[in-house]
């Protein structure tokens, strides 16, 4: 009698252990990685030209996320899983794909929505002069910058960087 009770307890304990071990971590890891793939571009990888000009690091993270999601979906849809875990897995995977899609769209599509700027000065044309305030609220002209000596020597030229602002 004691023997069969022990065996029953033993098999129940094993059952529980196996269920706990079978928590669907790949689906959650896939989601987390997809969020990292999106967010790490503007905060981390944009700081080095190699990872900024083509976001291969983020594409790699996104690719690994997709693999984890596929693994998680496979686990969720195996016959011994509950219906709820299948639904949750499907939702999390969909959300993750949307996050990765958002990154791809932002970099490869939205960032290219720039005006043609056909009227901008071209090579060989004179750059129009202008006068604007510098960081000390002093009025500075392009002609000043082209002529004012730097370390006693005449400037060889000026590099003008127009940027979006609001950094």
């Amino acid at each position, binding site marked *: 009698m004691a023997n069969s009770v022990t065996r029953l307890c033993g098999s129940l304990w094993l059952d529980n252990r196996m269920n706990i071990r079978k928590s669907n971590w790949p689906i959650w890891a896939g989601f987390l990685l997809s969020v990292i793939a999106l967010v790490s571009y503007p905060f981390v990888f944009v700081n080095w030209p190699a990872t900024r*000009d083509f976001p291969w690091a983020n594409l790699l993270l996104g690719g690994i996320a997709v693999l984890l999601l596929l693994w998680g979906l496979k686990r969720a849809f195996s016959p011994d899983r509950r219906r709820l875990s299948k639904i949750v897995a499907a939702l999390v995977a969909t959300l993750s794909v949307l996050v990765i899609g958002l990154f791809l769209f932002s970099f490869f599509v939205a960032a290219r929505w720039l005006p043609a700027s056909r009227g901008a000065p071209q090579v060989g044309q004179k750059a129009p002069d202008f006068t604007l305030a510098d960081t000390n609220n002093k009025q*500075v002209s392009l002609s000043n910058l082209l002529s004012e000596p730097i370390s006693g020597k005449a400037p060889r030229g000026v590099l003008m960087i127009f940027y979006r602002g609001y950094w």
Partner: protein
Amino acid sequence: MAISVDSPEVSRDLCQKAGYTFTFLSDPKAETIRRYDLVHAGQGINGGDIARPAEFLLDSTGTVRWVNLTENYWIRARPEQILEASKALQ
């Protein structure tokens, strides 16, 4: 020299944080930006106009010798490219 719609105060903050020492000019109404046909309408925080990214290398006479009008606002000219272009300036 850098230009944007940022105010002198915002630019000063940026220069202090990043350690930039070159000239930063403010074009809050995007007038010079418009003159250079670089306006990107409505992209500013309050729906105002800002500049689309562009770099121009001018020689001492103010003539454009090199232009970079990027097709993707994340992708900018690298310092090596600009240094290479500036070798042509005497």
